[in-house]
């Protein structure tokens, strides 16, 4: 639930930046005034695709996977959580690269980008914590199953 909520917030944030990029929004609300500088720099796009649009796609996939993981047929399975960990891990790595570019190459900060960085890290931490909890719970089930002589699949 936390991952889905954060993914939705990230999706809205990325959509805002992307809509500005394509001219739908006149000016960005940005306290430092350097959001536009970051967004319009050569690093604002990767292989011709705006970074904000990559964010829209990434958060949308995270949102879908996290909602699927909540459905009755999937809630007890590990796959959605594993996928969320992999996808958000890729997101964290990409965000780390973008933050490095902001800090050491273009020397400008975009608050929205930092917000997105915070969100993707929070999703990753939440999902990894959930995986660890699941593993511990599995271990306990195995142990109790072995003690009682019951099968533990």
């Amino acid at each position, binding site marked *: 639930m936390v991952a889905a909520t954060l993914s939705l917030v990230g999706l*809205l944030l990325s959509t805002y930046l992307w809509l500005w990029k394509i001219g739908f929004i006149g000016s960005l609300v940005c306290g430092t005034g350097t959001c536009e500088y970051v967004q319009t720099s050569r690093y604002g796009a990767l292989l011709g695709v705006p970074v904000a649009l990559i964010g829209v796609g990434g958060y949308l996939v995270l949102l879908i996977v996290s909602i699927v993981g909540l459905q009755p047929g999937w809630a007890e399975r590990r796959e959605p959580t594993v996928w969320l960990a992999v996808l958000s891990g890729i997101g964290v790595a990409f965000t780390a690269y973008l933050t490095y570019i902001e800090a050491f190459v273009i020397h400008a900060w975009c608050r929205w980008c930092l917000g997105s960085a915070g969100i993707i890290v929070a999703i990753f931490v939440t999902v990894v914590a959930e995986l660890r909890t699941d593993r511990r719970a599995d271990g306990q089930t195995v142990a109790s199953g072995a003690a009682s002589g019951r099968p533990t699949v």
Partner: protein
Amino acid sequence: MAKSGLKPFYLGLVAIALIGGGAIFLARGTGGGATSTIAPALAGDTAVMPGYVLGSDSAALEVEEYADFQCPACRMFNIVTLPDVVERLVKTGRIRWRFKDRPLENHANSLPAHQAAACAGEQGRFWEMQDQLYYGQPDWEFVRNPQKKHREYAQKIGLDMSKYDECMGSNRYLSRLVAEARRATVRGITSTPTFVIGTIKIEGTVGYDQLKALVDSLTALKKP
């Protein structure tokens, strides 16, 4: 978790989506830079630092554009909006456009670009060089030796290269450019692009419609 137990959660997601979507939709209307007032230019400002002018002396209004060639927002404005402004407001005699150098201190490759434009200006090709610098900005903004790329632009627009090289080698515009940047700072112009019409200052990118609306209202005010 049972499906019915998820209902409040889904409702919460929908609420967040609606609030966020609504905020984005409202932000759509904020088309353009922030407007505020500025002290009028000193009488000597234009005489000492005239900048580069497009349009007629008899135009009712003058718009000053303070820009930095390494600024991506300036690039965007000059590529997307300025051609419209020139065609529909400058060529029709409604406004005069004055470019003012405002190299920002945190842009390492900005001063050489402004020098290159000034040297092109000596040969009457400032605006052509401006186009080259903006269109090619991604190719020189972070390189170690931007002058090499600027020299290619000079060749491309047909400058007399011996005069251009002599001009760039002499650094004769450097002190003027630094002085222009300082003067702009004193006037409160610390970001680019900034547009000044009389005592009205607009900071940030501005669309054609916003600029035209402002020109219309100021022109109406000037009519007897």
